């Protein structure tokens, strides 16, 4: 690897200051970052090792909301009883990531801020994500690329936890050189037409520090369904994070957010509206699946994601209802 200095920050303030150094990057678990350094996708001079910070990996309940330290490992997050009980979609999403070894190192914040796995990007093609001004997938191999929200870049957001957090109406605490701010999960991710080079709204030097979940409704049921490209260890081909607020058999409200189909976690407000106040029958679930793919814009090779998305939405809804 290229040479760099590892810095263990004393506290968050120190971490922010260290990130101001030239070519400094934050690192959580490191699985993804080290691979990117080895491939020369990132050429840091300084690694700010956030896992050296104490206390930023805890789950705590504060009255109405739950606070999750961004540096919690995916494995610990998926085992946390409070998360499993009341925010199952997030536990399942965390559990679906890669393999035990990666989940033991990878952090929630790292997973949310993960860079795309588009093979053009990862093979150093000079695309939007690599400082260039085109997207090679449009006329190339786009089997795993976006069917919604694409253009000018057609990556899909690679995170499993991101759709779950959007579905949970999470809020993100961000810190940086200009202080702290709170961003709704839904507003954290940026469409390429807004910003083709980056997937989220973090400004240079900013870090995702903690994730805050509103109190789960009493009738809340949630799950994460992920379609993989072998039986384990791939990013989502299509996934669905669904949170239903149920009262008896009636769905009072729904949150449905897809992964693997768009450059950002893809919320389906129309489908959510269809379900509000309804009993979720197989027929309604099928209709929801149909509605979920309205407006999809497939590329030459990813049209199969349309029937796949329909099926995933319908059966995930039914499994929850």
């Amino acid at each position, binding site marked *: *690897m290229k040479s760099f200095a590892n810095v263990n920050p004393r506290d968050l303030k120190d971490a922010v200051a260290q990130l101001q150094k030239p070519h400094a990057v934050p690192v959580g678990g490191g699985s993804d970052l080290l691979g990117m350094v*080895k491939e020369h996708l990132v050429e840091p001079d300084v*690694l700010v090792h956030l896992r050296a910070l104490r206390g930023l990996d805890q789950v705590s309940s504060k009255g109405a909301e739950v606070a999750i330290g961004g540096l919690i490992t995916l*494995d610990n997050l998926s085992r946390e009883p409070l998360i499993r009980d009341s925010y199952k979609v997030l536990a399942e999403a965390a559990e679906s990531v890669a393999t035990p*070894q990666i989940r033991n190192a990878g952090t929630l914040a790292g997973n949310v801020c993960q860079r795309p796995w588009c093979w053009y990007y990862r093979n150093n093609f000079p695309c939007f994500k690599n400082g260039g001004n085109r997207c090679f997938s449009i006329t190339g191999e786009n089997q795993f690329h976006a069917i919604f929200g694409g253009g000018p870049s057609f990556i899909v957001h690679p995170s499993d936890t991101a759709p779950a957090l959007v579905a949970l109406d999470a809020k993100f605490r961000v810190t940086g050189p200009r202080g702290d701010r709170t961003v709704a999960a839904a507003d954290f991710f940026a469409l390429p037409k807004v910003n083709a080079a980056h997937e989220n709204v973090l400004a240079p030097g900013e870090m995702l520090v903690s994730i805050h979940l509103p109190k789960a409704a009493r009738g809340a049921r949630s799950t994460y369904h992920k379609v993989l490209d072998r039986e384990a260890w791939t990013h989502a081909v299509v996934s669905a994070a669904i949170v239903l607020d149920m009262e008896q058999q009636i769905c009072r409200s729904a949150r449905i957010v897809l992964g693997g189909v768009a450059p950002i976690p893809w919320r389906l407000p129309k489908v959510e509206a269809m379900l509000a106040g309804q009993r979720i029958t197989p027929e309604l679930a099928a209709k929801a699946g149909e509605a979920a793919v309205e407006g999809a814009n497939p590329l030459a090779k990813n049209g199969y994601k349309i029937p796949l998305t329909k099926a995933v939405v319908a059966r995930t809804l039914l499994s929850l209802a």
Partner: protein
Amino acid sequence: MSRISRRRFVEGTGAGLVAATAVPLKGQEQRPAPPTPPVPHTAIQVTVNGTRHKIEVEDRWTLVELLRDHLGLTGSKIGCDRGECGACTVLLDGKPVYSCSQLAVWADGRSVQTVEGLARDGELDPLQQAFIEHDGPQCGFCTSGQLMSAKALLNHNAHPTRDEVQHAMTGNICRCSNYNRYVESVLAAAGTLSASAGRKA
């Protein structure tokens, strides 16, 4: 003798080349060495298989590099160096991780267990014994990683189901594809494999 020109490089001075017999490579004029900044180092303490090591590491060394090249523990293998195969799996504070995807400096103050630390006082771990008896290793290159993932599993779940074994070990690729045998071995080590299924040939 093959028709190859010989050249020798002078260490460290960037003093250019002493061309011997054939055409020198183009562009090889005498050039001063560009100033190279020193490679950052850090002194760390890491416990490996119960032994505490104090060692200075380059910040860029991965944990597997530290283990293999500097601590002489070559049992952990590098299959891909990208966290995509599991051959480098070690236990870091008891949890399986890809040591190719951890920096050595991050192991400061922590404890690592590798395959070399499985056997105790010359006695093989039941997993190792089971791997021998149930033909776990074919080429053997993934074996250390498979053992460490299995060890972590049995450490917290002494009687896993077949499904639990497969889930726990799915981060370890075996290209010889000897998966059936590895699962059989782990179940046998856990004492949960039924006698009849044990040595089916």
